[in-house]
């Protein structure tokens, strides 16, 4: 694919990595052509030319930090796009019309707003006369050392508190800004953002972080004018505000780096240009492009940031964890008392009643302590609205993003780990799932694609569904690709879900990024890795032509694992329930020995290796005959394995704990759990156990 427009170039760049020299060269040549054959406007040219130069350095190997340079290329193209589409008056071209449409949570009627002639203007979109951002072009964007250091008398703990607090303000204002785009008259949203900048400014000044205070002041001034209705919240203004939020994030990041490092504050790239842009903001030139009538039903119920009136208190998480630990202990101690034979034989009914009563209280206490680390998914979802907006405008698509179930709560520790996979999946859904508007037209769908995120509870888990109405996944193509790349030998015995999960395999579809399915591998193995970390499960269903649904099934909390307690000899192990597919006692006809792979069991047409746990963990006195033992099927897709155990002792909720720093990581186990009798049971790390065993099997045969 040779990109012919800036939008195409940005889309291509998103898929490339520093090692894809061939594609980078294509991109460089295309950009050079654009810059010097006057196919882009004068304001774009310097940015495009700079992007091409940087690419040249990466390709030639002359770049000391290729990754950072790639980011710089992306930034340059963004600027080029911005200076092209900054605040052009009508006619609104097609590619640009996609931008306001794609803004999350807003319904737009872009067709009626788009003059008919704009269809011809698609690839010339970038050639529009720049208005607003022409100012930006004059300033070189370099990462300059600000020459500033953290004030020497800084109270580190105060600074840390500030960073946490400011981070919360930023996410709140980001969400509010998106609300504002949908409804520029929302005075509460303006106030939220204004307050955020104002508070950050005050605290930063107090802490001696002059440049942050200064910047927050500029951004605040802009918003003050919006708040006082002296200017409209137009397209350029929205863009400036969002960029200001990003800049504030970067500035805070710099403070964090300075804290961790030598105290030198680095100035994020683009600081000066943004300051100038803020300063030179000209409301007259701004298009009221997003003054759109939002229809009520598409604005999710809780999309607005409500200032919580409830009184809250900040508690350090380690203290909370200790409390939860102690409560967990209390539960076990209580269980031991309640199960004591003396109590069962006791002649005092009063005592039994008192113990039962204490038990109820203890359990309630446990639930309460667990609920203390739960936070709603709202802020996570809000961040994704921004991802949808940015990705959609980058690839020139029109996407409507709706969310549901933001109030569903999930463990604080899970939120951070969940954020990354969701970003990748949402970006993927917009970039590769949703088709281009023209293609959607041809397929008889509305030009605006839909991406929906819904969270709900289901049988003790939290499920997050990501539903797009895009082109869907094609099983055959994925299977062919996977066979080609040596990921599988054939798809025999694989369900659709198994096949679709292959797109998350590391290395899948990195070779050829042009077809509609292959691009889906970019960064998606992160999803898989993080999900494993939080013991989540991903189910994918898809109908070609109608869209794809990704269902993330997550535990409510990491603190408690649903486990199956199994016995091997005299020892007990806990297998995480989410990893278990089924268990059964094998028939003689199901067992076979395959040369080079050892013992195998054939279940419903699928052949999988048997792992004798007693052998892997050298347990004495365990059942040796598979026909007398039980096989527990674990793992997913092509990597299913049968673990051989003596007996299933039952399902149990356990609290996973590290095995102690002195031991470090023990291969095969993810931690220990205190069992009902107060003893420690080891929690199996299924993946590691499988990898521990494979070489042994090969040796044995």
């Amino acid at each position, binding site marked *: 694919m040779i990109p012919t427009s800036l939008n195409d170039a940005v889309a291509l760049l998103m898929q490339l990595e520093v090692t894809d020299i061939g594609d980078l060269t294509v991109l460089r040549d295309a950009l050079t052509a654009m810059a010097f054959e006057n196919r882009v406007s004068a304001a774009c040219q310097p940015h495009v030319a700079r992007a091409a130069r940087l690419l040249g350095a990466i390709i030639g190997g002359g770049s000391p930090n290729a990754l950072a340079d790639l980011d710089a290329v992306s930034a340059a193209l963004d600027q080029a796009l911005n200076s092209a589409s900054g605040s052009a008056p009508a006619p609104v071209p097609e590619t640009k019309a996609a931008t306001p449409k794609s803004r999350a949570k807003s319904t737009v009627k872009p067709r009626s707003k788009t003059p008919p002639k704009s269809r011809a203007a698609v690839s010339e979109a970038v050639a529009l006369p720049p208005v607003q951002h022409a100012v930006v072009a004059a300033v070189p964007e370099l990462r300059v050392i600000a020459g500033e250091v953290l004030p020497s008398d800084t109270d580190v703990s105060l600074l840390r508190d500030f960073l946490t607090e400011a981070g919360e303000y930023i996410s709140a204002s980001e969400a509010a800004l998106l609300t504002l785009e949908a409804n520029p008259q929302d005075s509460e949203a303006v106030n939220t953002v204004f307050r955020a900048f104002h508070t950050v400014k005050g605290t930063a000044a107090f802490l001696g972080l002059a440049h942050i205070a200064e910047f927050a002041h500029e951004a605040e001034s802009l918003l003050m004018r919006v708040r006082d209705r002296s200017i409209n919240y137009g397209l350029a203004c929205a863009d400036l505000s969002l960029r200001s939020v990003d800049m504030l994030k970067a500035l805070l990041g710099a403070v964090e780096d300075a804290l961790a490092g030598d105290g030198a504050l680095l100035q994020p790239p683009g600081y000066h240009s943004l300051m100038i842009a803020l300063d030179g903001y000209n409301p007259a030139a701004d298009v009221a492009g997003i003054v759109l009538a939002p229809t009520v039903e598409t604005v999710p119920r809780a999309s607005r940031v409500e200032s919580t009136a409830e009184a809250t208190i900040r508690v350090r998480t380690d203290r909370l964890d200790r409390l939860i630990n102690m409560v967990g202990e209390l539960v076990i101690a209580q269980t031991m008392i309640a199960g004591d034979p003396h109590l069962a034989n006791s002649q005092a009914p009063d005592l039994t009643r008192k113990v039962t009563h204490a038990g109820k209280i203890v359990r309630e206490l446990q639930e309460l302590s667990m609920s203390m680390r739960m936070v709603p998914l709202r802020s996570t979802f809000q961040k994704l609205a921004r991802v949808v907006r940015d990705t959609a405008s980058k690839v020139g698509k029109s996407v409507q993003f709706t969310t549901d179930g933001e109030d569903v709560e999930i463990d604080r520790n899970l939120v951070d780990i969940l954020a990354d996979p969701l970003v990748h999946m949402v970006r993927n859904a917009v970039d590769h799932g949703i088709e281009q508007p023209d293609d959607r037209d041809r397929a008889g769908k509305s030009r605006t694609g839909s991406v929906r995120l819904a969270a709900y509870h289901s049988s003790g888990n939290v499920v997050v569904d990501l539903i797009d109405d895009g082109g869907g996944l094609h099983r055959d193509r994925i299977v062919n690709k996977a066979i080609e790349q040596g990921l599988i030998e054939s798809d025999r015995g694989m369900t659709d879900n198994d096949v679709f999960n292959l797109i998350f395999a590391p290395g899948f579809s990195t070779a050829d990024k042009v077809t509609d399915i292959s691009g889906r591998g970019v960064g998606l193995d992160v999803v898989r890795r993080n999900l494993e970390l939080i013991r989540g499960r991903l189910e994918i269903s898809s109908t070609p032509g109608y869209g794809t649904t990704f269902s993330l099934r997550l535990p409510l909390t990491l603190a408690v694992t649903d486990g199956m307690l199994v016995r091997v000899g005299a020892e007990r192990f806990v297998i995480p329930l989410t990893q278990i597919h089924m268990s059964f006692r094998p028939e003689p006809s199901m067992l076979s020995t395959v040369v080079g792979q050892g013992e195998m069991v054939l279940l419903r047409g699928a052949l999988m290796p048997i792992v004798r746990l007693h052998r892997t963990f050298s*347990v004495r006195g365990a059942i040796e005959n598979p026909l007398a033992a039980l096989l527990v099927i674990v793992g997913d897709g092509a990597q299913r394995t049968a673990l051989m155990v003596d007996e299933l002792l039952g399902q149990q909720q356990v609290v996973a704990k590290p095995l102690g720093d*002195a031991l470090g990581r*023990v291969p095969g186990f993810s931690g220990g759990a205190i069992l009902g009798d107060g003893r420690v049971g080891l929690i199996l790390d299924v993946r590691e156990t499988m990898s521990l065993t494979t070489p042994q099997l090969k040796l044995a045969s």
Partner: protein
Amino acid sequence: MSNSKGSVMNNAAGPASSGAAVLIASARAGKYLTFFLAGEEYGLEILKVSEIIGMQAITRVPRTPEFVRGVINLRGRVIPITDLRVKFGMEAGTEQESCIIVVQLRDVQTGIVVDRVSEVVALLEDDIADSPDFANGVQTDLLLGIAKAGGRVKLLLDIDKVLAAHEVVQMAESTSAHAA
């Protein structure tokens, strides 16, 4: 609590084999918890002991060195248990009075299995002599010194070195290497 002081002592005792005798002289005196192991009496700086608990069910952890007896539940925390007899290459014994001394090294807790806890003694610098070249199978670089108070010889262990995590790791690697 005792952490900071404990690690100071440890640091001072570190270069025992080099010539920093003056430093050591002031660092070794203090209170020691003594215990028995295969008939010999050993001492352990009291500041590093966090508690003594009775013998309890230990969960074996596969694929760890032999001297790691396993892990126990110490009020909700999982801590590893080291068998000093095995670590010192003595034959494993099952003493009636076996108990577990929980030691606190910086922020890591570890239990050690000993035959019997004896007493707490206060030792003066004069009571402590440098380790001889041999000491009943225990490598001498694991000893702070030898005390001769109360008519008995006590081997004072440098418990940090004895339990040093990297050593455990090395052993773990070598065992898994054998397995493969």
